[in-house]
């Protein structure tokens, strides 16, 4: 790396060399990620650091002259004392001890200028690292608007490092930041630093530095106070909270529906178009029945998930999420969880995959793991086709409470309740045993309200849909192909065998003794195997097996099921689907978010055991009642 701005020879040669790496560090709510997005735009990717649940955000900033610089967005931390996983990762990256992550050439320290007294404390350990550092005093617009002041020049002299007063959200004052990112700079000049592990001394040091830079803290945020008086009002607060929850639900189940139908219709239509072009062969069947329909089954959830993330994004960026967490905290605390688990668990009613991604807002690792572990027990929308089919086949529609609630709706509600109780019961057990939190660990910072920007919402949607499509899509693709093979091998005269003679049929028969106590025969067994890809696949599998139209509303399929399944078996099947982790996308996302195979395996084993025991009990109880 050399000082060769505008040096044509260097560019012409295109010598491969390590690019300059700059780490971004700052406390939570300092606007660090906003600045990262400003500098990198769409040129960023997210991964997990090896073996930990901490995300690695890496992006490229393109500078004048086409040069690129690598930026690493570290997790938000209040200090570099390694106590939490986040602090350990931040420290390891800054000291060059993180495998696969080179020691950064320079550091951007992002602090909230409206809260400098506290945020400046982080400057001490960062400057002590001795790396070239620029301190970005972010949210300068807010500081100014609320009558605060700081002398950046004077602060720079005090800290021995360049200081920029900027607003990442508005893109103000970023020229010096871009210059710092582009050019080599000297390590910080030696200055007076406090004893790093003594927090009160660090706080006093930060106050002294602020004072010498004529720091004038801003007036309290008037609008935040006014809004909080409404959103945290003893009566209106919970009402608004309930309205938000209802809106999110409505969006997931009503507004997303037309878009989901469109995606479904498009997948079917395009599949038919492609099928028409291919000659009839096993390969066409693999492509259409395996790949196309398998991926389509996942793609259909994308509108719902995008809408969900749009809502979560607005809630989080505006600052309301912290208030919602505050309101929900007491209720969640009853099962050992906390307020921040609420929104992810609400999302799990749509799909566990976005719910698990949404747990990223929970800083407490134990609470986050507990939320991830129980999320798939909430009734996701992939269970609905299965529930609809079985309930329609076995439960005659009769009014229960006048015209308000029929037997079928009551059964559906009962299944929702069952999933909810299983989730919260499990949370209670986990949080009072292996995932017990340290006492008094719940701390929730209430950021000022801010207007969400389209840019940040857009980037968030893009990031989440990429994760969803890549993780869920690739897993489903593999599983769909594997299941197609199981159902079509061994071929008889180049055509698929009847399903009972296929490998899937053989496996179904092999597992029959295991599932017979649940009231299932081998056909249901095949359905259980294929639905490992995604729950609703069992409907089309049963359709294939019984030679009926593979649709939850198909009367032929309902009749065939009534013929083959006792009432006990039907109840057992419903309970099995309520509890089992029949979803490879979820397994894949849990593995990614928890940084290893330990938790997804524990979860899969636990949920399968729960499903088996629950289905066994349901079968025997219902059979006793009927007899």
């Amino acid at each position, binding site marked *: 790396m050399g000082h060769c701005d505008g040096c044509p020879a260097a560019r012409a040669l295109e010598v491969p060399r390590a690019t300059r790496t700059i780490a971004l560090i700052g406390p939570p709510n300092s606007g660090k990620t906003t600045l990262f997005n400003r500098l990198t735009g769409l040129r960023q990717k997210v991964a997990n650091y090896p073996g930990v649940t901490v995300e690695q955000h890496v992006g490229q900033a393109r500078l004048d002259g086409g040069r690129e610089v690598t930026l690493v967005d570290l997790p938000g931390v209040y200090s570099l004392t390694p106590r939490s996983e986040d602090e350990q990762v931040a420290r390891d990256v800054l000291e060059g001890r993180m495998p696969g992550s080179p020691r950064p050439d320079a550091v951007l320290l992002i602090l909230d200028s409206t809260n400098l007294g506290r945020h400046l404390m982080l400057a001490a350990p960062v400057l002590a690292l001795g790396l070239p550092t620029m301190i970005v005093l972010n949210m300068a617009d807010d500081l100014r608007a609320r009558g605060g002041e700081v002398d950046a020049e004077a602060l720079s002299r005090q800290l021995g490092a360049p200081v920029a007063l900027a607003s990442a959200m508005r893109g103000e004052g970023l020229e010096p930041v871009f210059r710092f990112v582009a050019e080599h700079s000297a390590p910080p000049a030696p200055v007076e630093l406090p004893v790093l592990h003594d927090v009160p001394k660090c*706080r006093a040091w930060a106050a002294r530095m602020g004072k010498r830079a004529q720091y004038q803290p801003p007036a309290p945020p008037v609008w935040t106070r006014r809004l909080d008086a409404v959103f945290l009002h003893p009566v209106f607060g*919970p009402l608004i909270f309930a309205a938000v929850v209802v809106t999110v639900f409505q969006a997931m189940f009503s507004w997303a529906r037309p878009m989901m139908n469109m995606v479904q219709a498009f997948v079917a239509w395009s599949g038919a178009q492609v099928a028409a072009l291919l000659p009839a062969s096993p390969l066409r069947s693999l492509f259409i029945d395996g790949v196309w329909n398998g991926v389509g089954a996942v793609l259909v959830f994308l509108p719902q998930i995008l809408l969900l993330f749009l809502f979560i994004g607005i809630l989080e960026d505006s600052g309301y999420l912290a208030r919602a967490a505050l309101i929900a*905290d007491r209720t969640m605390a009853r099962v050992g969880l906390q307020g921040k688990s609420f929104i992810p668990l609400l999302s799990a009613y749509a799909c566990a995959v976005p719910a698990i991604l949404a747990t990223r807002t929970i800083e407490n690792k134990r609470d986050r793991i507990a939320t991830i572990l129980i999320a798939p027990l909430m009734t996701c929308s992939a269970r609905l086709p299965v529930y609809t089919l079985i309930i329609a086949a076995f439960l005659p529609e009769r009014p229960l409470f006048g015209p308000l609630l029929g037997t079928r709706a009551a059964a559906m509600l009962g299944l929702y309740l069952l999933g909810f109780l299983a989730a919260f019961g499990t949370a209670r057990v986990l949080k009072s045993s292996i995932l017990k939190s340290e006492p008094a660990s719940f701390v929730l910072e209430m950021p000022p309200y801010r207007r969400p920007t389209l840019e940040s919402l857009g980037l968030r949607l893009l990031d989440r849909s990429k994760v969803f499509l890549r993780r869920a899509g690739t897993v489903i693709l593999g599983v769909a192909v594997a299941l197609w093979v199981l159902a079509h091998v061994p071929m008889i005269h180049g055509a698929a065998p009847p399903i009972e003679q296929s490998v899937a049929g053989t496996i179904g028969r092999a597992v029959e003794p295991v599932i017979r106590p649940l009231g299932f025969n081998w056909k249901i067994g095949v359905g259980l195997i294929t639905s490992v890809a995604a729950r609703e696949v069992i409907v089309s599998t049963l359709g294939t097996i019984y030679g009926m139209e593979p649709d939850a509303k198909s009367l032929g399929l309902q009749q065939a099921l009534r013929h083959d399944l006792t009432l006990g078996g039907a109840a057992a099947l419903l309970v099995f689907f309520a509890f089992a982790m029949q979803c490879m996308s979820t397994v894949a996302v849990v593995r990614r978010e928890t940084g290893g195979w330990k938790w997804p395996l524990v979860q899969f084993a636990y949920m399968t055991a729960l499903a088996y025991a629950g289905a066994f009990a349901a079968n025997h109880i219902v059979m006793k009642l009927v007899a």
Partner: protein
Amino acid sequence: MQPSFNCRRPASLIDLGAGEQGILDRIELPEEISRRLMELGFVPGSRITAALSAPGGDPRVFRVDGSEIALRRETALHLKLRPEAAGGD
């Protein structure tokens, strides 16, 4: 406004009603948690104002050092106030 004190025990953050202030004296919690709280601004000697709370009064938001932090009652109980300096403006 004057917070009402129970004479038997030193006042803590839970004794502050909405809008009342106090000076933090000490944090009676394990090292790790008290460090975290100090990093968030709960440094002994700092002035803390109780603000709004969730319905039912728990958790409550506290203003300290220019930011707003919500603590559960079980935590706030262990943040003891300086008796002589406690009181409203």
